[in-house]
């Protein structure tokens, strides 16, 4: 009763793999930009200057409370249409995922910083280090080590979230699977394949990060 038409799936192999590559590309670019933007946001959040702090907190609250698909639709179907901005779907997808992950990463950085005993800062200050140096040489390196697992999780979350970019028409894994389903009328085969691939990428990234954590361990 439950048959699985493997041959059809395999026949579409190249197309699926290309789509998978695009998925990984989108996720990775968003992750890297998100790491950078998230750092800026978290620095603003730590700032002594009230308006900066307020801005950062608002940014974080909004983008952690907005569902990814809502954000994507708002940007690509709302903003671009209204303000007549030309934006390719891939770019829109990456921009949205960058912003959203930056909000989560900012919170991750913050939890990392808070996990460092404040005696570390005191020791650094007592040595005469400037506030910048205290951050770059003592606090940040330790924070990163603490939150590396959480960062890995975020990366996996981005891979899963990239499936939503299909809504914008980008030919990544989810959309390609949908197109294949439409063409061959084999939802079970192609959606299962997609799910398996996503899980596989997630597992792979998990292993990668565990290796990374071990290497950074003192």
């Amino acid at each position, binding site marked *: 009763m439950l048959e699985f038409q493997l041959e059809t799936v395999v026949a579409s192999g190249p197309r699926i793999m290309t789509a998978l590559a695009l998925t990984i590309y989108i996720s990775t670019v968003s992750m890297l930009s998100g790491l950078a933007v998230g750092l800026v946001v978290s620095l603003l959040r730590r700032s*002594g200057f009230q308006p900066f702090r307020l801005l950062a907190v608002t940014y974080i609250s909004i983008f952690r409370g907005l569902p990814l698909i809502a954000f994507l639709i708002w940007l690509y179907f709302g903003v671009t249409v209204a303000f007549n901005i030309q934006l390719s779907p891939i770019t829109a997808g990456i921009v949205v995922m960058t912003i959203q992950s930056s909000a989560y990463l900012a919170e991750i950085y913050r939890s990392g910083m808070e996990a460092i005993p404040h*005696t*570390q800062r*005191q*020791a*650094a*200050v*007592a*040595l*005469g*280090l*400037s*506030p*910048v*140096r205290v951050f770059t*040489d*003592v606090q940040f*390196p*330790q924070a990163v*080590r603490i939150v590396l697992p959480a960062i890995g999780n975020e990366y996996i979350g981005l891979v899963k979230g990239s499936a939503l970019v299909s809504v914008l028409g980008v030919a990544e894994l989810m959309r390609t699977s949908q197109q294949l389903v439409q063409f061959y009328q084999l939802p079970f085969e192609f959606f299962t394949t997609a799910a398996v691939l996503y899980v596989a990428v997630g597992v792979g990234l998990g292993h990668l990060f565990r290796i990374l954590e071990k290497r950074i361990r*003192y």
Partner: protein
Amino acid sequence: MSDVVLEVNNLHKSFGSLHVLRGLNLTVQRGEAVAVIGPSGKGKSTLLRCINLLEQPDEGQVIFEGTDYVPIARRRGLRLRGNPQLRQLRTHIGIVFQQFNLFPHKTAVENVMLAPMRVLGMSKDEARERSLEQLEHVGLKDKVDNHPQTLSGGQQQRVAIARALVMEPRLMLFDEITAALDPELVGEVVREMQRLAEGGMTMVVVTHHMSFARHSSDRILFIDDGDIVEEGEPDTLFNNPKEPRTQEFLAHLLN
């Protein structure tokens, strides 16, 4: 150069409603090893932290080599660079903490090298050379590439001492540095302090370790309730304490 390295006048510090330091006065001469003893929680640590301005005194003066740093500390410098004069001060005053506070993500030698490179602007090679020297002086030549977690408490504390000494400070502060150590590790750390004292380092040592206070210091301060109750030469203070509170404290210690 004057012989008075440190002068503390009328130092007051409160934490909320707790008035910890009450008008404390202190003078430290160059080359003096001053031991500070007294019951816990009565201001000894706070005193040290006010000396290098890790804590901001509410009132009073902290005069290091002729300059009062209390008003300087009050000035909020530009955010990123901090307070340059204060940072200068800290290159001249070294402090070793009870909990070592080594940087866990750096090896022993890297811990020691950090300040010379970043604060004194030394090149990596020069900083490394000096750091290795200091680590050898404290007897840790073969542990220089170890991370703090792989070192015993006594070893970590010695790295902390090296880290402070590499900056060639003119005044050293020790904040109960043996209190967090297992008894068998205390000896090696106290030996370092003795070595420094004999070598003529100007130091203020807050300690429970009465043997050091008695045999290696030039002067002892007994602090209780935020002020100096009695001070004097070790032999005088230990054998003939004048104040009743001093007598009580010492009696307590000896049983």
